[in-house]
């Protein structure tokens, strides 16, 4: 999930697209969604509290986004990126306390389960698209993931 302050976002978008005429769109665009978003997440939480809350309904900044780790430079553009095919919650192990399906350095076979994504109470195994070696695990256990989000990298 991306989580961004408002006008900053527009500025960034405008800048980004402005720059695109100078040929950097694709990379800039992809990188921004993941990186820039999380970088400014803490700022968001602050600005969201600018108005005191006399009304009964209080805004609840989602803690998970702010807590999410800052992703590496641009995993989405990595050819070995395994992306989430759905919205849900990622589990790195088959059950709580069990050993993770894979870890960094694991050699995996095509079709081997890498992790599980739970969506609407259903466990969906995410399998390796080909043989390779896990070089990076981007998501953490129980992390909410959105469609197209990079889960891990196999090289």
């Amino acid at each position, binding site marked *: *999930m*991306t*989580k*961004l302050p*408002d006008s900053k*976002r*527009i500025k960034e*978008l*405008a*800048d*980004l*697209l*402005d720059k*695109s005429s100078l040929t950097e769109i694709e990379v800039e*665009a992809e990188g*921004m*969604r993941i990186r820039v978003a999380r970088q400014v997440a803490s700022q*968001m939480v602050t600005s*969201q509290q600018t*108005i005191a*809350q006399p*009304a*009964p*309904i*209080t*805004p*609840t*900044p*989602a803690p*998970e*986004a702010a807590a999410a780790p800052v992703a590496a430079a641009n995993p989405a553009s990595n050819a070995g990126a395994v992306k989430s095919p*759905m*919205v*849900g*919650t990622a589990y790195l192990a088959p059950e709580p306390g069990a050993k993770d399906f894979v870890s960094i350095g694991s050699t995996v076979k095509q079709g081997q389960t890498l992790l599980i994504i739970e*969506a*609407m109470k259903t466990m969906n195994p995410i399998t390796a698209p080909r043989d390779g070696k896990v070089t990076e695990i981007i998501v953490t256990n129980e992390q*909410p*993931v*959105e*469609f*197209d*989000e990079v889960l891990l990298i196999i090289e």
Partner: protein
Amino acid sequence: MISKILIANRGEIALRVIRACREMGIASVAVHSTADNHAMHVGLADESVCLGPAPAANSYLNIPAIIAACEITGADAVHPGYGFLSENAKFADILEAHGITFIGPTADHIRLMGDKIAAKAKAIELGIPVVPGSDGEVKDVADALKVGREMGFPVLVKAASGGGGRGMKIAKTEDDLAEAFTTARSEAKAAFGDDAVYIEKYLEKPRHIEIQVACDTHGNAVHLGERDCSLQRRHQKVLEEAPSTVLDDAARAKIGKIVTNAMEGMSYRGVGTIEFLYEKGEFYFIEMNTRLQVEHPVTEAITGIDLVREQIRVANGEVLSFTQDDIVLSGHAMECRINAEHPETFVPSPGKIQTYHAPGGLGVRIDSAAFAGCAIPPYYDSLIGKLIVHAADRETCMRRLDRALREFAIDGVETTLPLFHRLLANEDFQKADYDIHWLEGFLQSEAEKKTVD
């Protein structure tokens, strides 16, 4: 109490709901397809979730993904906007099953009003006027005459098995009826092998007038006056205004009372719109939209009421913040739907907006998720913004609209902005002398003029 709303929509309406959430201190979750990764609603919501790839079926219409998005963000309510899943009863059911509040009416009411035949039957039951028709087949000319006299001429004789305009004859007066009846019958026989015909009132130059209602779960139903949406192209509204020039206070109060009685009668919840054809002082029910409409800001302008806020309040179980007596219509409002389309051919024009500068000043409201540098993807509808103008009277409203249109600068995609300049220059429009067919005729005559030149 609702504390976090997921908006199952995109574009200006997603932004509209996000704004209401912020103003009520409710957290907002935007959902989006990969085509909308950099869309404004994604940037302005407190959180966002990418649902799936560009095609709506895989993203904005992807119910499991939306439910999963609610689960991972902890959203306790969903606002469907308009279009997409806003009138999908199954979606409302599934949300309820998951304990998530659907900001809209009950699934049963969505289902009922989504079925045209059931909706018409319900309207009759609730005392809402519908297009009069014979009770089933009309057997002979004498019978036809009796029916025709009851409902008033002109009437339409239609093949019971017909469709697509065949086996359909207009009788303008009593004198035409015998011939129309016989011809329709024989055409019906020839075309469909069935000579059964029925009779319906024929509307020649109707207006499209719709009544906005807002209802809570405490038995309160309030109408917020009408919108005149007669200016349509291929059944798509182009410019809406309120109040309609053809209704006076008495007529408004009368239809308003009928409609609010009906809403109370069915225990409707939330906002809704009852659409009518209107001709010679009479209203004829077309359908009811069980959701927020694109043109709701027109009503907000003349009533000063925030309809999205009321939707959320009602979904929260609160009482409407106004009663019928509080509703005072003030001035005149118009809304232009600005589409990324060629202003004459209406061919969609997706692409990247290079320049975007919206008009400002007194009485001007812009609802748009467009900005300089934004993408207009080809996958969704072409509405890129709404320009709503409010003024003391219709004349001033037109002039204000004219000046606001001149200030509006969008470059990079074609837009329908020039169409509104042409409309404002037209005398029929200036006099509000139009019906639901008028705009098509206007566009055709303009196209012909262009060809001659």
